[in-house]
């Protein structure tokens, strides 16, 4: 509870400073990165609308409204589906603070899910404790899949992008192989994992959706990461290394150790995402989430990259970007249900937003310049300052 009190305070402080920043930026005629992201979202939606118009002009306007506002009708589901991408987003974001590009959230997520499944099927424990052990196991599984590329990077300078991509495939094939080979876990008739025992499933919030306690855990982890990054010795070292590797070496910061810890931690967090996805309660009684081993990389892992990029790797920002991505995805699936569009329209929009937000620096500069010029023109209404004669 102490942590919670502290976390809440931190959160409040951050929001307040954020508001102050936006205010002062506006006064100085600057355009804040926050607005740049909003603009990117706007442009992304616009391009989505254009694509929708091209594929079916008649339905495009109502479908676009469903896409952008449909999520509001199913907020519980939006929140529930944001949990896994919140975790993978935090994973990618944390590593990126140290300038490590963790493309491996996919594999780490899958490993975490597998470890949770193993605990779910092979270990018998009372409700609650069972969940806790499964979650911890998932963290270990994910951490292992982050530790390996961390180790390779630290000692052999193997590019983490390549190492993690390779491990994504190794992890996915291994997990699918192991699951298919286990009679206790795999239902051969359904070609999916069996129903998990109720004792290992996460506690539900409300009854109409699968929204569960993991959303609280996820947000708490995001806040904890924010505190770790900004208030602790480890965070100081991690950010220093991310900003300037040479200076951190000069300061005696142990790059190898921190690389391994950061990658393992990032892997563990992505692993939690896998656990939260598979351990979520089903809305149908005596049922559970199941996994189908069909040799496909986990999309939630890749979405983590988008979520982290959209929030500029800021842990608190990632909470909101995870909600947002989930919200648009929900809108996309509703469009698919009610209209002739495919749900991929949501992915087109999200990709466009990420793409445009990559230009957010340029956007914020050009719009900032524009605002400044307009302000100057207002202050100097004659407007002919450049052709003044001496």
């Amino acid at each position, binding site marked *: 509870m102490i942590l919670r009190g502290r976390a809440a305070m931190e959160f409040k402080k951050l929001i307040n400073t954020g508001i102050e920043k936006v205010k002062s930026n506006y006064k*100085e005629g600057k355009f804040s990165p926050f607005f740049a992201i909003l603009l990117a979202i706007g442009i992304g939606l616009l391009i989505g609308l254009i694509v929708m118009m091209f594929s079916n002009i008649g339905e495009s306007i109502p479908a676009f409204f469903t896409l952008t506002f449909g999520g509001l009708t199913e907020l519980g589901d939006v929140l529930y589906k944001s949990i896994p991408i919140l975790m993978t987003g935090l994973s990618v974001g944390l590593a990126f603070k140290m300038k490590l590009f963790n493309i491996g959230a996919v594999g780490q997520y899958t490993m975490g899910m597998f470890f949770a499944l193993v605990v779910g099927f092979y270990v018998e424990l009372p409700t609650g404790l069972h969940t806790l052990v499964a979650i911890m196991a998932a963290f270990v599984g994910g951490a292992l899949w982050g530790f390996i590329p961390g180790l390779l990077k630290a000692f052999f300078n193997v590019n983490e992008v390549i190492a993690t991509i390779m491990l994504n495939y190794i992890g996915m094939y291994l997990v699918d192989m192991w699951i298919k080979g286990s009679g206790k876990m795999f239902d051969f008739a359904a070609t999916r994992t069996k129903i998990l025992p109720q004792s290992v499933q996460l506690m539900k919030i409300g009854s109409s959706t699968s929204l569960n306690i993991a959303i609280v855990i996820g947000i708490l982890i995001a806040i904890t990461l924010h505190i770790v990054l900004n*208030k*602790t*010795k*480890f965070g*100081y070292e991690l*950010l*220093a290394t991310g*900003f*300037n590797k*040479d*200076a*951190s*070496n*000069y*300061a*005696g*910061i*142990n790059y190898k150790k921190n690389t391994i810890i950061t990658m393992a931690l990032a892997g563990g967090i992505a692993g939690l995402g896998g656990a939260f996805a598979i351990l979520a309660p089903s809305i149908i009684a005596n049922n559970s989430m199941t996994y189908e081993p069909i040799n496909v990389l986990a999309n939630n892992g890749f979405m983590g990259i988008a979520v982290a990029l959209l929030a500029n790797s800021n842990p608190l920002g990632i909470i909101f970007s995870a909600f947002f991505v989930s919200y648009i995805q929900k809108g996309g699936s509703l469009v698919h249900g009610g209209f002739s569009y495919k749900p991929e329209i949501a992915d087109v929009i999200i990709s466009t937003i990420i793409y445009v937000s990559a230009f957010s620096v340029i956007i914020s500069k050009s719009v900032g310049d524009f605002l400044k010029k307009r302000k100057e023109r207002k202050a100097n209404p004659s407007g002919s300052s450049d052709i003044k004669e*001496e």
Partner: protein
Amino acid sequence: MGNYIIEMLNITKRFPGIIANDSINLQLKKGEIHALLGENGAGKSTLMSVLFGLYQPEEGEIRKNGQKVQINNPNDANNLGIGMVHQHFKLVEVFSVLENIILGVEPSKRGFVDYKEARVKVNEIIKKYNFGLDADELIANISVGKQQKVEILKMLYRDNEILIFDEPTAVLTPQEIDELMEIMKSFAKDGKSILFITHKLNEIKEVADRCTVLQKGKYKGTVDVKTTSVEELTKMMVGRDINLVINKEEFKGNKSKLLEVNDLVVHSATKGKDAVDNVSFFVNKGEIVCIAGIEGNGQSELIQAITGLSKASSGSILLNGIDITKFNVRNKTVTGLSHIPEDRHKYGLVLEYTLANNIVLQRYWQPRFQNKGFLKKDEINSYAEELVEKYDVRSGKGINTITRSMSGGNQQKAIIAREIEKDFSILIAAQPTRGLDVGAIEFIHKQIVEVRDEGKGVLLMSLELDEVMNLSDRILVMYEGKIVGDLDPKKVTIEELGLYMSGAKNDFKGASSDGV
């Protein structure tokens, strides 16, 4: 308006929170050598950026031969005949002299580069000014002094008539500096106009006709160099009297050995050879030992091996009798090593961090600043405030300033404050005054002498001969990875030092197998 070739009148350039140029006037006559003098942060670079169209001034105008001109980008400047030799050369190492000179303005025939025509012109210029260059030599194979001549040739090839030299002597030996001064004079005689940016007053006295002085973004005036004394120029630049001669007394305390380096070898992968070749020396308590030499003779590699930024191939380093050769950086720090790094942006600072965070960069892990892994922000801030106050580190937002936005001099002051205020027994200072103004240099020299007077040792690596001569108790000259001289600054002359630095003299020849 008379015979001014370039005039910058009432130039004002503002940046958020600072006026970099406040109504500055600079009038360059045809055929004169005009010095632009000012401390770091005085606005020299901004003014030059305005002249080259990199910045647009808020107020003021630029005239050429009395006609108002608009310079929007460096190409405009080039078309007006303005050329510049940058402090850091902009040459392609794997290209020949000729290729570098014509780069960007290649004469061509049917799509092919016409080297014949270019070669004739380049050779003409080389001959005219007696540059002693071979147009076909690769840049990588020629000395820094010759590389600078290539930069100068670039301007001449483009028929520039206004030549700007940005701190051109920083990288040269005393002999090369003399040569450059002669070249500049001969250009002026040929009717070219020269703008000479520097903070070395003796050079201004030697070549310049007039001098414009800037101080903290303000125009302090233009004076005739012949009728103005060095002291007056200094006062105009700094705003107060400066004592550049260091008053230091003989150290009277215990002179036992503090740092010992034995047979140190450092292999450099980039150079493909031993950058430090069997070097042995020692530093006593209460002694400033200076490593002198022309840039690139192994000094940097030596410092990096001692401080732990790179690994020594063989040999040993002892501090207070403890073998620290294999220690990591943190353990060296704990054993008593303090390090002012050569490259303050690469190593010395995390530029994205606040000033407060950078002040504790070498001690954030100490119990004073952290408890169970949580940083004590209040303690860090109060310590930073204390140091900022004591060392007069100036910045826009105090200890919360992002270090990147601070001026070079203040960044360096912050590093020096950090390194001197922590516990240590030897200070390793690599080019601590590089690129700083005289005010800051005076301050840093005082600090270094104070460190010595406390009975600590100082190993100073410097390329500035004045600094070497004034500050050190003993001079070690490095040439091609070896120490070629162990000299007493009271007995050796600058010219003699120059001979050691260029490899012409070597006291330790017997010890090395290959001669000069």
